[in-house]
């Protein structure tokens, strides 16, 4: 065959036609909403295995399944599948009222039996629910009519908050028992706003609107969530029009693209912090306090995160129940120098320790630590940076073997102090590396405190004690950037979950 100019042109035209053939929908109005999601969905059961405690995929779960209690975009609870809930007078029993008229995706009726079964299953260690230790505080769970009751085996003031947190999902008793775990994985059924139409692991999930959804049918009738884990690829997805919505893009890209696309950037319940381990030089209060006072958090947010972040001085963000704006840690390099001098350290004779950080796990994590180390150097702290993977962080933290300082991010989408300050700072918790007895004694009684006002005040006092003694260095509350096509209005959720049923046409 002779390859002449004419043949070459014909070949080029054929290639272009081939490419365009798959993209016909791009020019049309948004009929099928396409979301470029930042993580993949490994498994469908939202109550078992590692996926169940992965905060980043809860948005997908919440599109298909309902939680016991609805969580509103501002993190506050609202009636969901449960319309009423509470304890009896002496807090030895709980009772819940179940919404009537709700249907499962397979058309069967949702009942109180489903709620009782889901709670019982979650409390059974054999099912592999990672939060079993919470659900196990309820016993003798019974359904009668549209009421569910249970005995309180061990009082947990946060039990109802867990009902809109990790693993707090209601699954269909009859369907699950009929198809088993494998069948459920292949064809999940929930009561949520969307039904699973097609799922390709590592690729996409295609959802169809649940027209009978008790909260009202979603506006977009078909939603495809594509798993695009690379940030640059997500930017290209929305920029090219292949996807209509994406999240967690670099802030620089967000600023560039929000001129042509719609951008929304709101604080989420995810914070950046530095764990201090009570070993070596961190046993010296002057060193800890100096390290805290020497960090200009606002400058870091402004310069490294393009202003997308909220400075925090406790592990509570403004949306959390125990947030106390009067607890502050001022930026004062002078005070840091004084404190270090009191312990015999100076710029010429710096205190030395190691700080661990991830690189690229959270936006500008490594760069933030570099900036902090630079600020510390100016006051007489010489910190050596060690980069590690997030998996290593978890392992070291569980074994209480973190370096004297370790950067990490902490999520707490229910906003209760137990799931922020509590688990991060209570010595016996596998997530805490501060083992000081004073703090353990302060926190201990709060786990079972039945008076809510007293409980929250108690946590505020704990936060104040932690800030005054610099037992941890809270840095910032993250802001989640979301980009959408001009025709789509996204309602951000403070938990960080990107929920398609909260998206509307402009």
């Amino acid at each position, binding site marked *: 065959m002779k390859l002449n100019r004419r043949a070459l042109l014909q070949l080029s035209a054929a290639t272009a036609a081939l490419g365009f053939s798959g993209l016909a929908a791009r020019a049309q109005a948004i009929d099928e909403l396409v979301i470029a999601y930042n993580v993949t969905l490994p498994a469908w059961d939202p109550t078992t295995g590692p996926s169940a405690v992965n905060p980043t995929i809860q948005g997908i779960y919440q599109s298909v399944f309902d939680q016991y209690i609805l969580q509103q975009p501002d993190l506050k609870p609202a009636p969901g599948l449960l319309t009423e809930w509470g304890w009896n007078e002496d807090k030895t029993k709980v009772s819940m009222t179940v919404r009537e008229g709700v249907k499962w995706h397979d058309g069967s009726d949702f009942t109180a039996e489903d709620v009782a079964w889901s709670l019982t299953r979650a409390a059974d260690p054999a099912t592999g629910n990672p939060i079993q230790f919470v659900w196990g505080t309820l016993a003798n769970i019974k359904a009668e009519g549209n009421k569910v009751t249970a005995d309180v085996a061990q009082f947990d003031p946060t039990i109802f908050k867990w009902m809109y947190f990790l693993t707090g999902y209601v699954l269909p008793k009859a369907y699950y028992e009929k198809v088993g775990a494998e069948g459920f994985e292949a064809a999940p059924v929930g009561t949520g706003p969307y039904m699973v139409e097609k799922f390709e692991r590592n690729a996409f999930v295609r959802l169809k609107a649940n027209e009978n959804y008790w909260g009202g049918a979603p506006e977009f009738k078909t939603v495809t969530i594509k798993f*695009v884990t690379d940030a640059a690829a997500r930017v*290209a997805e929305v920029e090219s029009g292949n996807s209509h919505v994406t999240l967690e893009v670099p802030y620089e890209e967000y600023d560039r693209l929000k001129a042509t696309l719609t951008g929304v950037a709101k604080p989420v319940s995810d914070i950046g912090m530095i764990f201090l381990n009570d070993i070596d030089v961190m046993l010296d209060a002057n060193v800890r306090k100096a390290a805290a006072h020497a960090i200009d958090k606002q400058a870091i947010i402004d310069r490294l995160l393009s202003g997308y972040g909220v400075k925090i001085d406790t592990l509570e963000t403004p949306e959390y129940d125990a947030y106390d704006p009067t607890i502050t840690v001022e930026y004062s390099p002078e005070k840091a120098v004084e404190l270090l001098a009191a312990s015999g350290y100076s710029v010429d004779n710096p205190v030395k320790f190691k700080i661990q950080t991830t690189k690229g796990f959270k936006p500008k994590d490594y760069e933030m630590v570099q900036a902090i180390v630079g600020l510390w150097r100016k006051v007489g702290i010489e910190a050596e940076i060690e980069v590690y993977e997030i998996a290593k962080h978890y392992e070291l933290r569980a074994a209480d073997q973190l370096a004297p300082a370790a950067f990490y991010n902490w999520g707490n989408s229910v906003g209760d102090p137990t799931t922020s300050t509590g*688990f991060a700072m209570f010595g016996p918790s596998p997530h805490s590396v501060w083992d000081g007895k004073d703090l353990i004694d302060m926190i201990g009684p709060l786990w079972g405190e039945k008076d809510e006002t007293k409980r929250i005040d108690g946590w505020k006092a704990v936060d104040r004690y932690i800030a005054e003694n610099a037992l941890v260095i809270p840095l910032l509350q993250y802001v989640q950037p979301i980009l959408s096509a001009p025709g789509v209005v996204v309602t951000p959720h403070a938990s960080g979950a990107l929920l398609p049923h909260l998206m509307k046409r402009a």
Partner: protein
Amino acid sequence: MRSVERCLTLLRAVLSRLATTLITLIGVAVIVFFVIRVVPGNPIAMMVAPGATEADIAALKAQYGLDKSIPVQFGIWLSGVVHGDFGTSITTRQPVLSLVLSRLPATLELSVMALIIAMILGGFAALTGTRLRGTRTEAAIDVGNGMALSVPDFLWGLLLILGFGVLLPVFHISGRVTPSLDLPFVTNFYLTEALLRLRFDLWADIVSHMFLPALALAIPLAAIIGQLLKQSLKETMHLDYVTLSRTKGYGENHVILREALPNAILPTLTLVGVQFTFLIGGTVIIERLFSYEGLGNMAIDAVINRDLPLIQGIVILFALIFTLVNLAVDLCYAALNPRLRHG
């Protein structure tokens, strides 16, 4: 009689290579099993919930069989493998074997497409450079080859996304197929099956998804093929039999394609075989970049989540592919090389 002897020799060689392959796979299995358990980061620490007690952590370890010693874990795993059970993925709770086998076709199709593109581009560059040797076109081809080689495949991927996904949106930049399409396939070889079923609409959609990642993988390989083939052709063009065919009055195109190419292509073929294994390895990053649902993409997720059984399964499969490809290349070489073919 002589051909029977040759067949027996070939059979012995194949069996010997298969035995070596088996030993290699066992070695890989041992190394991978122990290494991934020694490196920092374990899956249990990643799924421990806030507030979990020591007993909760111990129960989780027992549930995933990680409470036993590493040699005991290896024994259990090896015994399962012998019976075709590669274990269950920690993150997906699916059998590892079915997971990796479901993703393998996607990676194989991508790799083969990349190889075909690389051979077309590289072959075209080599033949054009040889035909127009000593001209500016040859110099331009050499410069192009140098550029293609010096830029890594993932960077080509980003450039292609920007060029043909964003600026000139001609091709799809993520996934393997448009989610809204109904796929009538019974295997996961989508591209092949679409062709066999004469579903050219689906075929075009799949090609439109695969083209950019395949091209990103192919460009560096095309440069290598182009350089080596051109060099081989140049050397062959000076041989006596080529000069003789010129003397007989054959045109330059005939001389290059019919006389020089069959001999010059042998070293390139060997190289292509070796490079194909590297190409499959390269799919890990490219699949991630293009959100392509292949084995490489799954491998990254498995490593991030410390999904030990899945990592083991994927690595074993990659090792198996590498050894089999090398075996196939050796056999092809034996079949095509006249000296080996005729004993």
